[in-house]
């Protein structure tokens, strides 16, 4: 079995990361009742003997002594990371696997990328190498960050190049929080566009998230919980937003509910690699199946169910409803419209008490309403993991490579252009050594090229499927 290392960068990245580790511990505690350190846990955690002097030697088998997250925490201000190291999860983090500074990046990609990038390059390499050495077989780096700020955006994407050079065979999966249009950081379009270029070139796979979608999911859940009509009570642990059963007893910060959703995304993404099932799906299969061309590696994710009803008198929602929900916009983690755009490929990762016939039946049922690109009409990748998430009997994560992502990029580009035309705030970037206007124009070109790729694919949508002439055999 392989291991993954999580690199959380910036305020957003670290806050999501914190929720992730909390829920990961909760999940493993629910599955692993006997307290034995097994391969599933080892994918994200080391087992450390804290009594041993020095580093805390890693134990590979036997009882769980003390679990340490395979994580590197990076932030250019101390507040968030310090809070984590003083909170209930303090023992989970290796205090040496973090890089902090005091001043912060001032919501400036250039400061994060160029200034802190060069300043901390050696230290970053050292920490990454250390975490890689502690892995038996490292398969993937998960980078968590936001696009709109300075550290997550700038330093987070600087990291990608470092990872690509130093660990070329290890996958780079990036969870990126994109700024919504009401974002309060004025320069977020600049930061995002500059970061996009790096994602285009150095990430294997990107899962774009936007706050507005997460917020909408929370509103939807609140409606159900508050309505409470006909004895509809929701099992607290099952909420995709909840921390119940985890170390942090109640929501401490307003973003916790939203971050838990992203944390659940990552857990579901890796579940079939960690736990057994009748049709496993490893992380390297995600890239293989969902990325038909290297640049088109942006995946729209949707999670269901969002909660489970506790009332036994209410019949369990039909399994098929779960599949329908996965294709509804209410469950997506990014604003997009896949149903009216073109699917290049789609993965359905199922957990729990679901069998192959349920999968097949639902694919048949939903297929007619979805448009797949002509050369991939049956572009489905499916997986069945036997272990359901905490609080549910089954769940589904859908990952779609769909041309609808381009809407996010087009909007981003527009916001960028509005700002850039007036040269607003540009001097903050240009005064950083290594930055010039060329950086901006290159970044915009990169994004335009990407949008163009999606447009070209969209243009094939209404064309009839061509029967291409096959090879003829001379008899």
């Amino acid at each position, binding site marked *: 079995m392989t291991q993954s290392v999580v690199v959380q960068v910036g305020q957003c990245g670290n806050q999501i990361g914190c929720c992730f580790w909390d829920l990961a511990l909760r999940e493993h505690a629910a599955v692993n009742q006997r307290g034995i350190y097994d391969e599933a846990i080892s994918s994200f955690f080391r087992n450390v003997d804290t009594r041993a002097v020095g580093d805390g030697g890693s134990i590979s088998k036997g009882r769980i002594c003390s679990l340490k997250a395979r994580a590197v925490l990076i932030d250019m201000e101390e507040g968030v990371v310090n809070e984590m190291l003083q909170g209930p999860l303090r023992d989970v983090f290796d205090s040496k696997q973090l890089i902090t500074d005091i001043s912060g990046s001032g919501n400036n990609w250039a400061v994060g990328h160029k200034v802190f990038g060069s300043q901390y390059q050696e230290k970053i390499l050292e920490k990454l190498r250390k975490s890689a050495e502690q892995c038996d077989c490292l398969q993937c780096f998960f980078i968590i960050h936001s696009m709109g700020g300075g550290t997550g955006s700038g330093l987070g994407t600087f990291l990608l190049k470092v990872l690509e050079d130093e660990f070329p065979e290890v996958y780079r999966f990036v969870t990126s929080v994109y700024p919504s249009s009401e974002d309060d950081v004025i320069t977020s379009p600049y930061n995002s566009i500059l970061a996009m270029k790096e994602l285009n070139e150095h990430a294997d796979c990107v899962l774009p998230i936007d706050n507005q979608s997460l917020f909408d999911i929370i509103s939807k859940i609140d409606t159900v919980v508050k309505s409470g009509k006909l004895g509809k009570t929701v099992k607290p642990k099952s909420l995709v937003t909840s921390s119940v059963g985890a170390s942090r007893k109640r929501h401490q910060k307003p973003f916790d509910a939203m971050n838990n959703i992203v944390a659940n995304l990552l857990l579901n993404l890796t579940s079939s690699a960690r736990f057994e099932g009748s049709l496993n799906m490893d992380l390297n299969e995600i890239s293989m199946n969902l990325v038909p061309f290297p640049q088109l590696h942006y995946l729209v994710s949707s999670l269901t169910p969002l909660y489970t009803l506790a009332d036994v008198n209410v019949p369990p929602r039909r399994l098929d409803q779960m599949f329908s929900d996965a294709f509804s916009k209410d469950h997506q983690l990014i604003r997009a419209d896949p149903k009216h755009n073109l699917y290049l490929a789609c993965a359905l990762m199922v957990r729990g008490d679901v069998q192959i016939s349920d999968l097949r039946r639902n694919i048949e049922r939903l297929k007619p309403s979805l448009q797949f690109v002509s050369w991939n009409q049956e572009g489905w990748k499916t997986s069945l993991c036997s272990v359901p998430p905490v609080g549910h009997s089954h769940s589904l994560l859908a990952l779609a490579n769909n041309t609808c992502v381009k809407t996010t990029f087009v909007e981003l580009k527009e916001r960028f252009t509005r700002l850039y035309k007036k040269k607003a705030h540009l001097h903050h970037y240009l005064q950083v050594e290594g930055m010039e206007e060329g950086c901006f124009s290159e970044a915009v070109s990169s994004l335009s090229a990407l949008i163009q790729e999606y447009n070209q694919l969209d243009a094939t949508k209404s064309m009839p499927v061509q029967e291409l002439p096959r090879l003829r*055999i001379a*008899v």
Partner: protein
Amino acid sequence: MSILTVQLGQCGNQIGFEVFDALFSDSYCSPGLCSKKENEAYQASCKERFFSEEGNGDLVARAVLVDMEPKVINQTLLKASQAGRWKYSQHACFCQKQGSGNNWAYGYSVHGPRHEESIMNLIQKEVEKCDSLSGFSIIMSMAGGTGSGLGTFITQKLQDQFPKSLKMNQVVWPYGTGEVVVQNYNSILTLSHLYRSSDALLVHDNDAIHKICEKRMNIRQISFSDINQVLAHQLGSMFQPTYSAEGSFHYRRSPLGDLMEILVPHPEFKMLGVRSIPQMSESSLAYSTFTWAGLLKHLRQMLISNAKMEEGINWHVRPPVSGLPTLGKTPCNKELHFNTSIANLVILRGKDVQSADLGGFKDPALYTSWLAPADAFNAWKTQRAFNKYEKSATLVSNSQFLVKPLDLIVGKAWNMFASKAYIHQYTKFGIEEEDFLDSFSLLEQVISSYCNL
């Protein structure tokens, strides 16, 4: 003679378990409906083929388990030991830490060479445990990365290292509506390479077996276990001992050799299919009786109309009236109504088997012209019943039945190849566009050959 099973990848290992379980169940837990002496001879023959015995009497499957990541093999070993009826040898497993990522190129070009020595050593050790080896049964899927890519590589190495032993690949055909996005690429690469190095490809189609589970066995929520059990039943009914020419108590010594000799007369035609009837749930069995005449009539019509299950058989399809000259080549895109066979083998097991009349299968109209029906058709009759079936009939055939599915896969793969989608994932590991083109050419040739029967 023994058959060594090589289980590759998740699919291969999950199916392999069910196969050994079905073989064990049939040999040791079924009534047999025959004399004690016959039953004992049957068990002994089955044991020689599929199991070795440890000092304490424990039965160990003659198998090598290979996977590039540990979860499935661990599960498989666990299942066997929990059931406690037979087991796998811990030493016959080869495992790595990271899978092939559904990438045929990775399985074939990276895992293959890297682990060749270890895997072949393991196989050699198991071979040495057999008094004499009939050959290999290699279980793999076409759609994934390890079974397909590494499976193909290992088959080639088996040909080099054991040139006198036969190889039959159990190739699992994925569901048409996508299990893996790149399944068509992996499939054409697998089939084209196997065609050169395997002696016979026995195809097991997920869609067909799924329908059997759904319509015949009335299973509501069909799991892969269900599918694999049906597959195992079909394979078991084929591989279990059958009488040789000398009659009762004398079971055939060389199962694979006999199968190949009958079914693969020409190296250009290696694709085999299996159908085993009756197909029904065990609970319904108690209420059903069968006659050989009825079973054989169904089986024959299933053959000529290319039906995969015992329901919805198209009874309108008839063999062409003999005497009329064949009008040139049959264009491939025309609906092939009548399924022409090269060779057929019918295996009958159960009560009053000697009374079964197989005349319908000897009709020359069913076959191509280049083999006399006496050579093209064979029947193996065994009194000892299979599993819970008082009477069962299995048809293994080399016929046109795979043309359409193969054509479909090649078409889809070609379409995707034209757009160059996903090709970078293969070229990354040394499988170039030329390799794809070679595969397409070979398979178009196979389709054409079968079409023109």
